[in-house]
């Protein structure tokens, strides 16, 4: 039995009244109507422009902002600030409540937030994936259309936007929130309520994006280039709001991570003993905090162009479309490293466990992560090589983009030397990490082509560039996302995931992923443009091959879903505390991790990679309970 008593629970009926998910939905809808009518009754009639275009553009914004505010108030985010203003003492009361309703409310337990993120990110990942299946359906033949012409662009935009917005927090959300406090020996994050806020903001944002279809969708793809975005139908406002809320969520998430790691490390945990996963989270968080606000301001300008008739991006009024492109990519390039760096961190964290060797070149690996983080600010104009930017800039950005492959290569080196002469076990998490090497290599090498300006003239805006970023983002991030799931979900939930199903999922995903995206390099080289609903007939065979592979890739995800539901709901084999034999501190705790993490704050004496060095494990928390609580 656990030495820590289970947290108290109010009866179910009591938990259903008050500030919870149901109240949040009700207040969210109410807020939406308040915003909508406020826009129509108060603001709308005074603006002639809205009469010309026959649409009160401001109403979409005010309605959704009202809805989000109502939703957050209903969850109870204003309760604590109001209480403190009224003089109540500080408390973390929400964490104490137990039961399944925690997962649908504002909970300050970082472990609950981690699990909420896992399900939330998973839900929107599957919605984005569904859109990808629809894209490939449309591209089966260039001669007829499965969807009306504008709808295809909305589907393309939805897929890209949903994935980019949601998977940005794909590893930091679930896994960093859950494990960073444990890895640094803390009981919580620095700002638990902000942590919960980042999750619910992301959920609200996702809901806003899925409803874009009711406003006509949007034609710009995930990049939202002005002036196409400023002249588009109202569906683009959903896109703008989605990304602005995602940006806000990212900024707060990154801030929380940085402050937590800087200030809440346990005694003995010096910078050279920090797990490499935490270093990866830190380098990602810095990028999030600095890049996301740029996105928010850019989108605010686009929204102002659409509602208040400013001309930031309209040359007739003195603005420039280059302003949008540059601002967007100043965010956009660090954004793709926000997606890639957690992948590096996971691979370097898992390889020592499954090779039974220390992480090779720890300082080099940290240098690589920080180097990528720093250099990512100096490369953004490579997205604009042929757009007419000043010619003097292009050699510089070509050089800086080529240079960023050096710190990336350091990650490869450290990973490769870690498995070299090790005792490798091909467990499911390890398979996904090994696949990362293959995928990211191809992605990275194709990036070398794209960074060379003459070669970029051939491939920019074609499927080659599309295959490049799918190899790095999907092959890099998503594969490590699944590695992290198979590695850590037994710890998070206390149930094992079926290994055979995991291996089937891996092999199906790996084979069909490569079968889908490798031919796209050829398709791009042969001249098929991105986001185009039709293509030259001689490319139909390749497109059909890719589409069928994509459908099978989608099917492999169903294998994963089946494994998840089967293992967690039906088979329910209790997981050991340390199924992988890891020296990392989270595996010295029971599965699932108890509410307060540690009975006593541990003291660290080394990094968690001491395999083969004849030392005791990192820190043994005194009196840690064994088994389920």
């Amino acid at each position, binding site marked *: 039995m656990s030495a820590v008593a289970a947290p108290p629970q109010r009866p179910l009926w009591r938990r259903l009244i008050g500030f919870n998910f149901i109240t949040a939905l009700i207040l969210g809808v109410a807020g939406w109507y308040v915003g909508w009518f406020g826009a129509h009754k108060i603001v709308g009639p005074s603006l002639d422009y809205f009469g010309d275009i026959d649409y009160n553009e401001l109403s979409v914004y005010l309605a959704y902002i009202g809805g989000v505010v109502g939703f957050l108030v209903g969850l109870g985010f204003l309760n604590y600030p109001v209480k403190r203003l009224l003089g109540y003492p500080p408390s973390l009361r929400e964490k104490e409540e137990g039961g399944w309703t925690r997962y649908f409310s504002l909970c300050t337990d970082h472990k609950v937030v981690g699990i909420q993120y896992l399900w939330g990110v998973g839900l929107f990942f599957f919605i984005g994936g569904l859109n990808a299946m629809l894209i490939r359906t449309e591209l089966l033949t260039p001669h007829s259309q499965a969807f009306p012409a504008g709808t*295809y662009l909305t589907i393309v935009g939805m897929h890209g936007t949903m994935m980019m917005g949601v998977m940005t927090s794909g590893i930091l959300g679930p896994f960093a929130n859950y494990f960073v406090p444990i890895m640094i020996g803390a009981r919580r994050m620095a700002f638990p309520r902000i942590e919960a806020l980042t999750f619910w903001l992301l959920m609200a944002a996702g809901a806003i994006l899925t409803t874009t279809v009711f406003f006509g969708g949007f034609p710009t793809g995930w990049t939202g280039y002005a002036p196409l975005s400023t002249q588009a139908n109202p569906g683009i406002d959903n896109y703008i709001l989605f990304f602005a809320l995602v940006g806000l969520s990212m900024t707060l998430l990154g801030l929380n991570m940085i402050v937590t790691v800087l200030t809440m490390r346990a005694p003995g945990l010096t910078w050279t003993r920090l797990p490499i996963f935490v270093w990866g989270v830190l380098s990602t968080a810095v990028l999030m905090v600095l890049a996301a606000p740029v996105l928010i301001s850019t989108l605010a300008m686009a929204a102002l162009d659409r509602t208040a008739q400013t001309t930031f991006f309209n040359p007739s009024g003195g603005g420039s479309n280059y302003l949008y492109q540059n601002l967007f990519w100043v965010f956009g390039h660090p954004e793709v490293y926000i997606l890639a760096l957690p992948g590096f961190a996971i691979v370097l964290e898992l390889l020592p466990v499954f090779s039974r*060797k220390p992480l090779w070149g720890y300082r080099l690996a940290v240098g690589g992560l920080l180097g990528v983080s720093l250099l990512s600010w100096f490369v953004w104009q490579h997205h604009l090589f042929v757009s007419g930017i000043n010619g003097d800039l292009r050699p510089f950005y070509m050089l800086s983009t080529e240079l960023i492959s050096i710190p990336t290569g350091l990650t490869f080196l450290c990973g490769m030397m870690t498995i070299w002469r090790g005792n490798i076990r091909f467990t499911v998490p390890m398979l996904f990490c090994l696949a990362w090497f293959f995928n990211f290599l191809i992605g990275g090498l194709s990036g070398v082509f794209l960074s060379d300006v003459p070669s970029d003239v051939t491939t920019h805006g074609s499927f080659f560039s599309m295959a490049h970023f799918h190899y790095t983002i999907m092959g890099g991030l998503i594969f490590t996302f699944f590695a992290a799931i198979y590695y850590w979900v037994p710890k998070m939930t206390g149930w094992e995931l079926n290994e055979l199903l995991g291996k089937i999922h891996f092999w199906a995903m790996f084979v069909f992923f490569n079968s889908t995206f490798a031919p796209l390099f050829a398709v791009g080289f042969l001249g098929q443009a991105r986001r185009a609903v039709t293509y030259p007939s001689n490319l139909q065979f390749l497109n059909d091959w890719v589409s069928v592979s994509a459908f099978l890739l989608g099917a492999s995800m169903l294998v994963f879903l089946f494994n998840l539901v089967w293992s967690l709901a039906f088979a329910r084999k209790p997981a050991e505390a340390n199924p992988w034999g890891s020296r990392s501190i989270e595996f010295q705790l029971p599965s699932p991790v108890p509410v307060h993490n540690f009975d006593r704050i541990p003291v660290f004496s080394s990094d968690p990679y001491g395999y083969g060095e004849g030392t005791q494990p990192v820190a043994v928390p005194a009196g840690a309970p064994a088994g389920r609580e």
Partner: protein
Amino acid sequence: MASQPAAATRPGDSTNHGLRVVVAWLVLSAIATPLVAIYVGPLIPPGNGSVQAQGQTFSNQVMTSLVTPVLCLMVVFFGYGLIKFHLRRNEAVLDGPPLRNDSLIQVLWIVITSAMVLFLAGFGTYELLKDGAGGGQGPNPIALPAGHKTAFQVQVIGQQWQFTYRYPSFGGMESNQLVLPEHTLVAFHVTSLDVVHSFWAYELGVKADANPGVDNVAYVTTKGPMVFHVRCAELCGLWHGYMFNNGVVVNHGAFTHWATRALALYHSIKGYVNRPADKGGAPFAYSYLPEPTRRAG
């Protein structure tokens, strides 16, 4: 299994695995790289339709050949490592050797990768500045091919959703057919009337974004007569995917014949020649800023 309390490692292994891998890699690269260069090289796009396209093809070929040894290293390393060092079924899970660092490998890796990267950056810069590589360089191009002062000017106007072409040396006449003279240095001036498009002439190796209010210059030196495909390479709305047509390179005689005829037809449109822009005329300009047009009713 519980966490290992003490390090029980495999008995030491004195084979120099590293040397084996390096030798295997060198041998494989020495075989594969020439094979790739000879057999895969000629297949690499965009081909030799213009001088710039040829330059791009050369860049692509060099990079493909450079990438081959990297791929060989990964194949050899992982092929050898994953087979040699994995635990067999039912073998005890013991810790491996506590190797944390090796300065020689670190230095070698950093030096070699930096050298490759710097070479590529230098090579790319050279190829780019030589003749512009067919890419759009904005209103003030710096990569100027020889003879650029007398280049044949063609304006490409992107609008939703077609490309039209104006020839300033033929009275600014506008046509929706792109006809070019052979063996000529052509300066494309790419601009847009509304949103951002991108003029991509695949076989010519030209890609330049069309921005409203901006003149984006791209140079290309045509070769012999051919047909080439033009499509839009930047998402521009509803019919971005349908925004394509064919262009053609013809000999000088045929070109002059076509241009004169097109100009005559253009002149037949009432009221175009003499009116200034604010009275409904459309004189040639290197960029246009159309107002949302007036509507009656």
